[in-house]
């Protein structure tokens, strides 16, 4: 085999391996569909997505996941509300204000926070935060929306902070210098020049943080309380989709309607996070800064 053909062959082999991520996505869809879609021979997609009652083990089982979707959405929104200010401001601190030594400490802390296993945070929420919250606010249970949102926010902060930080670093030096030259203070430069320039990157960070929160399993499984009903207050328990899947799969008989319904819930979850990621990808790609002249 001559050298050029060998090179070409190697390139093709590498290309096939590079497709692995797409292939895995295909395999994921294939197995979710194979195990989950048969459910829709038994009930309609509308009844599944918008059904208000989730009683998978009753005599006449009901598979309405609307309360689970609401549970997922609500904890994600609250977690985002907590995580975005903390994540973005800490990124501003790291990239614009902090002295070198504090910067190193803070960056390592955020990286270690990202490294904490979700089961550990779930355990912390369940064993430490929940009893405290129950006692302090005199609640029937400490396992509720607020608790789950706080713990989810802790998980989302590293994602939001590190991606925002990259976006802030990418703002070109000339912008800042021009602003200082006009007599703007550092605060004015940050809020009027740097943050607006980095906005698309920060938006990407927020969406990816939300995607992380909506798909997170162990925290909502251990801390959200598990009530599959529409919540009436922020101190009610909910049962987000990942919690439902993780809690019930062990008991659902193989290829029963319940088992299929859990896979179908996985399909919904998959497409929701997929949508978040595609939007984030679109934003970061579309507003990619190409040199300082294009803004």
């Amino acid at each position: 085999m001559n050298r050029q053909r060998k090179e070409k062959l190697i390139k093709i082999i590498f290309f096939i391996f590079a497709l692995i991520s797409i292939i895995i996505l295909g395999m994921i869809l294939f197995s979710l569909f194979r195990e989950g879609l048969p459910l829709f021979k038994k009930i309609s997609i509308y009844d599944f997505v918008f059904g208000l009652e989730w009683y998978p083990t009753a005599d006449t089982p009901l598979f309405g996941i609307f309360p689970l979707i609401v549970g997922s959405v609500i904890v994600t929104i609250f977690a985002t509300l907590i995580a975005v200010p903390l994540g973005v401001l800490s990124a501003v601190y790291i990239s614009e204000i902090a002295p070198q030594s504090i910067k190193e400490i803070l960056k390592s802390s955020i990286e270690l926070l990202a490294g904490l296993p979700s089961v550990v945070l779930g355990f912390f929420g369940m064993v430490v935060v929940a009893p405290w919250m129950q006692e302090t606010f005199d609640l029937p249970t400490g396992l509720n929306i607020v608790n789950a949102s706080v713990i989810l926010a802790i998980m989302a902060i590293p994602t939001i902070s590190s991606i925002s930080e990259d976006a802030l670093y990418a703002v070109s030096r000339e912008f800042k210098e021009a602003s200082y030259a006009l007599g703007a203070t550092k605060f004015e430069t940050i809020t009027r020049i740097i943050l607006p320039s980095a906005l698309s990157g920060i938006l990407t960070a927020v969406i990816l943080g939300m995607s992380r929160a909506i798909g997170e399993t162990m925290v909502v499984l251990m801390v959200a309380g598990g009530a599959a009903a529409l919540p009436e207050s922020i101190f009610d328990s909910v049962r987000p989709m990942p919690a439902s899947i993780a809690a019930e799969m062990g008991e659902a008989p193989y290829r029963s309607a319940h088992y299929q319904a859990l896979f179908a819930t996985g399909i919904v979850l998959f497409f929701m996070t997929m949508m978040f990621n595609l939007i984030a990808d679109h934003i970061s790609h579309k507003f990619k800064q190409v040199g300082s002249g294009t803004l």
Partner: protein
Amino acid sequence: MNSISKAQNNSMQWRYFKQKLFFSTVRLSALIIVLTLGGIIFHIVFNGIGVISWDFITQYPTDSMTKGGIMPAIIGTLYLTVGAISVGLPLGIVSAIYLTEYAKQGKIIRIIKVGINCLAGVPSVVFGLFGLGFFVVFLKFGSSILAGSLTLGFLILPTIIGASEEALKSVPQTFREASLALGVSKWQTIFRIVLPNALPGIMTGSILGIGRAAGETAPIMFTAAAFFTSRLPGSIFDEVMALPYHIYVLATAGTNIEQTRPIQFGTVLVLVALVLGVDLIAIIIRSYMRKQKRW
């Protein structure tokens, strides 16, 4: 004249006051993050250190897991982690080599990158469903080390691709040009020049992947993890106990949840020490490498 300079002075004072206020808020948010991490770790160490002993990490659990050690869970997590990295590392490195060394900017590379981002966003519980539907059911591996390792390996793939890409890109272009100018073929250049120089970077990225794999719970719940095993696994087709799942089981479904609290904290401490220890090693190696860089 006097009043004008006074007004200017006032507005300057006001502007610096706003800046001060903003900086304090930013510092506070950074402080909250560090304190959260510190608080969680302190709480775990404080409550868990009491049960840590040689016996705790080398003995089997006894009395239906209310006493004894956690050795099989530690061994199981090691097996799963080694399995995951053996799957994820080769695939990830080859993928990254194609993306940095061969692919030209264009549609295909864009699609592959979107695929990698989407894979990174797939919720861990959906990976669990995928592992169950594909490896356990479709390929008939059963709940086993093999199924769990493959699932975890695919889960950490995007992390490894990202780290490897970063490391490959940081090798200066002149190294490649020098090698090609000597008449060395492209793939020899990659294997003899680019890869060795990128290896430390690839390794740190992979270490972070190891930390991730060791701490995940949801992907192994239905694919590999056993409630309790009385012996160590004999082959890759056996189920194993794993630290994260052991924590979940003890905290939510154990025989006496309140009484085994110390054991739970001890197990959490072992997992956190393992995962953060591994992450810390990666962080230290990386900052050391940055200082050592010769180019």
